[in-house]
């Protein structure tokens, strides 16, 4: 089912013999090897042309750097080729389905890239006079307005740099609110479901909170009774992901919120999965006090191989006064950035402090704004609907071939476990690596921890039915092969990627974390 008119002819001897061919260069057609940039060093070559400044009296005092830094000299063409070759070793959304659950790998429109590069946004300094950045402040204010409307929350802190940073921000606001009530010292426990993302407990720990795990029901949701039993006067907050990391909506969420509030605690929601409900459900209507929004998930700012992201945090009325510095206000004279405690006091707020130098991820704000304006209220609602529809389509189509731990409907992602591989000798990891050979990035594996051998598939709304059908067909094919005890597809997979399976144990046991001009090991070779 390659979609091409492969005519079913058998492969020629030429192809069969390919495996035995060792190339001189190590390259294989368009699969090109590339050394480290340091290994390309050719002293005297340089990728920039800069004129040596005319003689002048240095003001460095005794602080001039002596000796070589060790950076390689490489011309522009060679630098270009180096990174183009590296790029070609990567999978990407632009090349194919990237169904990493919890990551919302959706299409990244290039309009957003273009807008972020307008000189008026990309080439302004965070500390130039505010009257010269009114458009930038307007953009932040407009984006804030959209986020508040979409979440039904009265305030938003824009500065957090990513989701985990947003968690920190939200929890700091909660702590500040508790402190204002004089309860910061007594409320020391945070309730976190077992299924939570690692950043949740890690964040709680940064604030010195004790993390108390809430068990899940057989249905993959918070055990309401167990949760209520854990509430008490020492609980500062609950950190709950909704839709949760099993891809399910927490049905009891309003009861949970009520119970949390009744206990004098706050409700932090991990909003990484907001994509499932944007435009259809407003967190503000669920009783949530704080929630971060990963602009790099729901609002499509590109992942960039690991970042940057942005994690604005929407806040309830109870937490709003404690939002960190800086924030934008709109007065008679235009927009202004409140940057200092003094200004905040005059504005009637009590910021808990500052998360970061400057004002947050402006580059991401512009991209998210372009994305939101493109969709509009109607398009964003459709985003949630199509994301949920796509996930349910995958779940329904594969539930008899793989094994699904929980009943549907799911939200934006479909969770499977590894029961279907039991007795086949094929591990979850083998299964995932075989997907690489088929041209797919594997789904999220081994997360969430509440099911064994989790396979969490988030297709997102920007995948077509055609793509999903091919993906479903592939997984059925692989599942059948595994069950049929045909291990050839799995053993040693991936067969066709730029590298075979990598030795992670070796990497961790003897860490080589940087290139060295001459390590003893290399010298010995």
């Amino acid at each position, binding site marked *: 089912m390659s979609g091409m008119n492969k005519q079913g002819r058998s492969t020629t001897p030429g192809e069969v013999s390919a495996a035995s061919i060792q190339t001189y260069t190590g390259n294989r057609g368009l699969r090109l090897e590339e050394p480290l940039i340091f290994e390309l060093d050719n002293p005297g070559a340089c990728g920039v042309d800069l004129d040596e400044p005319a003689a002048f009296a240095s003001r460095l005092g005794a602080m001039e750097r002596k000796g070589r830094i060790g950076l390689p000299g490489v011309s522009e063409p060679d630098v270009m080729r180096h990174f183009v070759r590296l790029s070609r070793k990567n999978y990407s959304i632009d090349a194919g389905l990237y169904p990493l659950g919890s990551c919302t790998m959706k299409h990244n429109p290039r309009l957003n890239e273009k807008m972020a590069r307008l000189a008026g946004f990309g080439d302004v300094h965070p500390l130039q006079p505010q009257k010269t950045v009114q458009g930038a402040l307007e953009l932040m204010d407009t984006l804030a307005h959209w986020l508040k409307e979409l979440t039904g929350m009265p305030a938003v802190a824009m500065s957090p740099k990513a989701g985990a940073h947003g968690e920190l921000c939200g929890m700091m606001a909660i702590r500040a609110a508790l402190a204002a009530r004089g309860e910061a010292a007594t409320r020391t426990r945070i309730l976190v479901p077992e299924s939570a993302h690692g950043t949740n407990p890690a964040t709680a720990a940064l604030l010195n909170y004790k993390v108390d795990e809430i068990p899940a029901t057989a249905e993959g949701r918070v055990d309401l009774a167990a949760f209520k039993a854990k509430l008490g006067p020492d609980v500062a907050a609950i950190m709950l992901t909704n839709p949760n990391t099993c891809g399910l909506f927490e049905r009891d969420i309003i009861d949970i919120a009520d119970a949390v509030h009744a206990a004098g605690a706050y409700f932090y929601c991990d909003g990484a999965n907001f994509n499932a409900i944007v435009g259809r459900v407003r967190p503000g209507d669920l009783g949530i006090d704080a929630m971060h929004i990963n602009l790099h998930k729901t609002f499509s700012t590109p992942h960039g*191989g690991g970042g940057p992201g942005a994690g604005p945090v929407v806040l309830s009325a109870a937490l709003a006064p404690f939002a960190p510095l800086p924030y934008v206000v709109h007065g008679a004279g235009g927009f202004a950035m409140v940057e200092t405690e003094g200004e905040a006091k005059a504005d009637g707020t009590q910021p808990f402090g500052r*998360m970061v130098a400057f*004002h947050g991820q402006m580059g991401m704000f512009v991209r998210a704004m372009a994305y939101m304006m493109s969709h509009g209220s109607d398009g964003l609602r459709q985003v949630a609907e199509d994301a949920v*529809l796509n996930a349910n389509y995958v779940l*329904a189509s594969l539930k008899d071939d793989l094994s699904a731990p929980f009943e549907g409907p799911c939200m934006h992602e479909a969770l499977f476990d590894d029961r279907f591989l039991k007795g086949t000798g094929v591990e979850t990891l083998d299964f995932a690596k075989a997907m690489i050979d088929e041209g797919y990035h594997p789904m999220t594996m081994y997360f969430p921890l509440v099911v064994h051998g989790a396979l969490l598939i988030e297709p997102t709304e920007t995948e077509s039915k055609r793509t999903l059908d091919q993906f479903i067909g592939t997984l059925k094919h692989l599942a059948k092969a595994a069950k049929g005890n045909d291990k050839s597809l799995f053993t040693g997979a991936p067969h066709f990627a730029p590298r075979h399976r990598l030795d992670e144990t070796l990497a961790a046991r003897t860490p080589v974390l940087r290139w060295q001009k001459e390590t003893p090991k290399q010298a010995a070779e």
Partner: protein
Amino acid sequence: MRYLPLTDADRREMLGVIGAKSVDDLFRDVPERARRAGLVDLPKRQGELEVERALTKMAAKNVSAGSVPFFVGAGAYRHHVPSTVDHLIQRSEFLTSYTPYQPEITQGTLQYLFEFQTQVAMLTGMDVANASMYDGSTACGEAVLMAHRVTKRKKAVLSGTLHPQYRAVVENISEVGGYAVDALPPAIPGATEDIISRIGDDTSCVVVQGPSFFGELVDLRAIADAAHAKGALLIAVVTEVVSLGLVTPPGEMGADIVVGEGQSIGNGLNFGGPYVGLFATKSKYVRQMPGRLCGETVDAVGERGFVLTLSTREQHIRREKATSNICTNSGLCCLAFTIHLSLLGEDGLKRLARINHANAVKLADALSAVKGVEVLDDSFFNEFTIRLPKSAAGTVDELADKGVIGGLPVSRLIPGNASVENLLIVASTEINTDEDRASYAKALKEVL
């Protein structure tokens, strides 16, 4: 909608396969009263042309740094970024890939991270560096927490050389973590800061920035010795990473951890973000480091390859016992940094640094020739502090009206402190021409 491939026919067919009557059916787990029937109160979808028009209009309300003589630094610097950089980071395979969790098909990302780590280690003069933090200020906060873990102490001493917003970030994370901070007053150039006397047996770390917030070069050696004598770590902060092409690196002066803002190399001003936090340390501390690390290994057939490693420090493995909660970092900004620095190389970086220094010296000469203006810094790299005969904030405002963006009035970040009221921090990089400097001196003369 152009980004949504499903058609109504697709949706109907898929609902059939699922066995649901409608999409509403799929949302049945949402409590009834939280289900919104209608649209939120925001504008509807728009085409590219309309979005572009609206945002272009908004952008045009800002004075872009490239359109005027521009002299602001203070932690973010306008450098020329070669066109190759922006071209390469937009390649689909870099831009639209995730964290390299499947190393077989993300060797591109992994290899540049390995190169980035090496470059940062070289620049700072340290053994190892991680694969980035959010920015310099959060890296600084993380460094303090790491020092607490390493020393098992709870107090950080912050030099007055530190960028005030970095200090605020450290104070904030320290407060919620239950840690103490002893912050010295602003280290206005001219006076010498006595930080050594503040280091005690309970001090976990001393945090010093060089070049300082005020532009001054800082010799760390004596501080390092003093800190080490008390069992404390020295954390060095660098907000202008280009300086490391010309100035003695912290690693050669005894720093235990070096954090920095990498924006200057490869990354634009972007009104403050995204930037790239640099984090380097000694090998012996590597297991206490926050953030991702990329390491070298081999694959099943013995070919060299790279993987994320030492993940047992990280939240996704260690959860509440992790060294940090960081997950998404500054991947693509690292790439920009690595490409730009690859283009510069040894010779290019050094020359770029010399040009920056030369331009700043020329600017200092030009401004100190204006009556009433005094340059305070004895030594500096590409940034220094001047004392004006009147309020710096007001002066900058008047300069802006004349089309010159003249620097950062210290009072904006350190309000309510009379001693800094008239202080202005100015920077000059390779982008400034003699003409720019002349315009500045002329405008300054006019407004003073």
